[in-house]
C-alpha cells in the first residue's frame, strides 16, 4: 500500500504571532554578534499571523529569523498570511542577490502551500529588497499571483497598507549611523582571534607598542571606519581607510622620537615609517572589505577600487613589515 495521505493532505499552516518574546530578542542578539551564523532560520512554508481569513493579505519573506521577526512584529495586530521562502537562513536582500529569494522559490512555495486554495485573492506583497531576485511578471505568469512590492523596511508596512503606495522615503535604502553601528559587533567577533595572534607575534618583534599598533589599525578599520564612513574624505572605501589609518598611525610615528631620544636619527625615522606604512594598509584593507556590508557600492565600482588600491596596500604593508624586521636585526 502506498500512503498518499502526505500528498493529498492540506499542507500545514504554522501559527505565529506579532509579539516578540525575550527568546526572540536573545536570538537577534546572537545573530548580531555572529554567534551560530547561518543557524538563525525557521521552517519555510505558510504561516498564519493572528486569525487570517481568505481575504487577508499575503506577505513574503526569507527564513532568516531577523527578517521574519521584523515582518511579523511590524504587523502586530494585523491578520495575515506570511509565506516564508527557503533562503537558507539568509536575509531578503542578500538572498535576492543570490537568487534564493527568487522567482523559482516563490513559485515552488505558492504551489506547495496551495496558496490559491487558502486565499481568495491573487496578490503577494513582497519586500522591495526582494526585487533583485524576482521577476514580477514571471511570478504572475507561473502562479497567477500578482506581485506587489511593499516598502524597503517592514516598519513602514502599517502606513503603507493604508493606501498600498510607498512614499519616496519608504523606497530608499539608508545607511544611518544606527545601521552601521549594528554591523560592528559581528566584525569585532570575527577579527578578534587573528588580531590577538598578530599582536602576540608583533610583541616579540617590536614590543608592546607594535602590538598596540596592530590592535589600533584593526580597531580603526572594524569599529571607527563604519561609524565615521560618511565623514571621511574621498569616495572610495580604500582611500577613506588609508586616510583613517594614517591618522591612527600618527601617534605611533611620533613615539620613537619620544621614547628613544638616544637613537640615531635614521633608526627613529625608520621605526616611524614602519607604522606609517603598515598601519594605513591594514585599515584600508578592512575598510575595503566593508563594501559588502554597505548598502550602495556597485560591483563594477568595487572591482575598480580593488584593482586600483589593493596593490598599494600590499606594497606599503610589506615594506613596513620588512623595515620592522630589518631594524630589529640592525639593532
Amino acid at each position: 500500500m502506498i500512503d498518499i495521505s502526505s500528498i493529498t493532505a492540506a499542507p500545514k499552516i504554522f501559527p505565529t504571532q506579532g509579539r516578540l518574546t525575550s527568546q526572540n530578542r536573545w536570538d537577534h542578539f546572537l545573530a548580531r554578534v555572529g554567534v551560530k551564523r547561518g543557524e538563525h532560520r525557521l521552517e519555510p512554508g505558510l504561516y498564519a499571523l493572528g486569525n487570517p481569513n481568505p481575504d487577508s493579505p499575503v506577505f513574503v519573506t526569507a527564513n532568516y529569523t531577523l527578517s521574519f521577526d521584523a515582518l511579523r512584529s511590524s504587523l502586530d495586530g494585523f491578520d495575515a498570511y506570511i509565506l516564508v521562502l527557503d533562503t537558507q537562513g539568509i536575509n531578503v536582500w542578500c538572498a535576492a542577490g543570490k537568487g534564493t529569494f527568487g522567482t523559482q522559490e516563490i513559485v515552488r512555495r505558492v504551489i506547495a502551500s496551495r496558496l490559491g486554495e487558502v486565499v481568495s485573492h491573487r496578490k503577494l506583497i513582497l519586500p522591495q529588497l526582494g526585487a533583485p531576485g524576482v521577476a514580477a511578471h514571471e511570478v504572475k505568469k507561473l502562479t497567477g499571483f500578482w506581485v506587489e512590492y511593499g516598502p524597503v523596511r517592514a516598519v513602514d508596512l502599517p502606513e503603507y497598507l493604508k493606501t498600498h503606495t510607498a512614499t519616496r522615503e519608504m523606497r530608499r535604502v539608508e545607511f544611518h549611523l544606527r545601521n552601521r553601528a549594528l554591523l560592528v559587533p559581528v566584525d569585532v567577533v570575527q577579527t578578534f582571534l587573528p588580531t590577538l595572534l598578530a599582536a602576540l607575534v608583533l610583541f616579540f618583534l617590536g614590543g608592546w607598542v607594535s602590538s598596540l599598533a596592530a590592535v589600533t589599525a584593526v580597531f580603526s578599520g572594524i569599529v571607527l571606519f563604519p561609524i565615521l564612513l560618511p565623514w571621511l574624505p574621498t569616495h572610495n572605501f580604500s582611500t577613506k581607510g588609508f586616510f583613517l589609518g594614517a591618522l591612527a598611525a600618527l601617534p605611533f610615528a611620533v613615539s620613537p622620537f619620544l621614547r628613544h631620544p638616544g637613537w640615531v636619527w635614521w633608526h627613529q625615522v625608520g621605526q616611524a615609517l614602519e607604522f606609517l606604512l603598515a598601519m594605513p594598509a591594514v585599515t584600508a584593507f578592512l575598510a575595503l572589505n566593508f563594501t559588502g556590508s554597505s548598502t550602495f557600492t556597485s560591483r563594477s565600482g568595487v572591482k575598480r577600487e580593488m584593482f586600483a588600491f589593493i596593490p598599494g596596500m600590499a606594497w606599503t604593508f610589506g615594506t613596513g613589515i620588512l623595515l620592522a624586521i630589518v631594524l630589529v636585526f640592525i639593532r
Partner: protein
Amino acid sequence: MLNAYEVNTLVYDPNPCNGCGLCVAVCPHAVFEMDGRKAVLVRSSACMECGACQKNCIMNAIAVESGVGCASAMIRAALTGKKEATCDCG
C-alpha cells in the same frame, strides 16, 4: 583622485518603456523617476547594480551587469578560483 563609483554598467533605453513604473518602485536609490508615461534615468551614478530594475522590466529596456558589490566576496572568489562572487553573509 579616482572615484571608483562615478560610472557603472547601467544602460537604459527609453524607447521600449511602457511606463509601468516598476523600475521606480524597486530601485533602492531612486535612480529612476516617472515623467509622464516614460521612466527617466535621473541619478545614474547612484546605481549599485543590484539588478532589480532589469529583472522586473518586462520590456527589456534596462541592462545592467548585476552582482554583489562586496570586496571580500570577490577576494574569496579569486582565491578559490570561482568565477562568480557570491555573498555568504547572514
